């Protein structure tokens, strides 16, 4: 592993004696180990990585926004203006989004889905602020998918009772293994979709910045950032939450 990582140095050519590109430069989009933790987990060394730092920054940003918003709502005015208007618009849009796709069950899940979409969206777009997106680490997306799959299965058992088990043997008892895999495959597909998209964006931007001459990195990458960080990140946040809602509604109404 270390050997493989050490060999990714990019060898570049000199044309006419001028240094067009960086020589032996590492394309840097890896997760860096920052601080070694004083304990071990399952025999493995535990490190504080860039993912944790970026995640804490994102969480701090959300917290500060939430505190400011709370202060504003507590001292709300009869005729909303400016910031309060924006907040009300956002909350209304969010609850419409959830109620539109979950129907009557939406009320209970507005909080979870709202948190999820805010967090994933900010994580995905944190590449714009020079951070390494925390969602480009499989650990983050896998945990998010575990939460979602737990909620799906909880609702399955809560609303279908024994139907949750008998539906695994339908239409034929022979299909039990594939039904069981199908129940938990959304864990892999949900997490890999988010991870793959954001990692692809991160890798492409890192390659662009490291492999091209400095003059090409002046204004042109803004289009790349707009598409890979912003558009793709927004779409993936939308898709993750949308699929969460669709799966949960399926189980409730199933």
């Amino acid at each position: 592993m270390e050997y493989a990582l050490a060999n990714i140095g990019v060898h570049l050519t000199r044309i006419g004696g001028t240094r067009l590109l960086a020589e032996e430069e590492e394309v840097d989009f890896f997760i860096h180990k920052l601080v070694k933790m004083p304990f071990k987990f399952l025999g493995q060394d535990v490190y504080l990585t860039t993912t944790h730092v970026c995640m804490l920054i994102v969480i701090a940003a959300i917290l500060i926004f939430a505190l400011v918003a709370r202060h504003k709502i507590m001292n709300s005015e009869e005729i909303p203006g400016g910031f309060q208007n924006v907040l009300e618009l956002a909350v209304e849009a969010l609850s419409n989004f959830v109620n539109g796709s979950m129907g009557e069950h939406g009320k209970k899940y507005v909080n979870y889905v709202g948190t999820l979409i805010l967090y994933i969206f900010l994580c995905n777009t944190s590449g714009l602020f020079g951070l390494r997106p925390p969602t480009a680490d499989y650990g983050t997306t896998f945990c998010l998918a575990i939460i979602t799959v737990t909620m799906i299965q909880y609702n399955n058992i809560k609303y279908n009772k024994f139907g949750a088990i008998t539906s695994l043997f339908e239409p034929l008892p022979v299909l039990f293994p594939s039904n069981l895999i199908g129940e938990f495959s959304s864990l892999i597909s949900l997490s890999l979709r988010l991870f793959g998209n954001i990692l692809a964006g991160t890798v492409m931007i890192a390659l662009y910045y490291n492999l091209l001459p400095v003059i090409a990195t002046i204004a042109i990458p803004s289009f790349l950032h707009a598409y890979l960080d912003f558009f793709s990140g927004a779409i993936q946040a939308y898709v993750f939450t949308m699929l969460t809602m669709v799966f949960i509604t399926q189980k409730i109404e199933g």
Partner: protein
Amino acid sequence: MSNITNEGLILACSAIGAGLALIAGIGPGIGQGIAAGHGAAAVGRNPGAKGDIMSTMLLGQAVAETTGLYGLVIGLILLYANPLLSRFLKL
């Protein structure tokens, strides 16, 4: 030929394998194109339902994209966290 090291051979074959794995991008490309085409046709037939059509189309496209991303992840693993090389070096 004699000065190709074992590690070099593994790295070269991994690079070829990564390229082959990314052929997986063909399928999602075709699928997303079909979805977008039918989405455009649906909007043409019923412009009032543009919002619903858009969200359904994007959801379907994102699901179709997953298979391509599996290929991408395998390609990235082969290039940057090569399991074959680390196994060879350990043996």
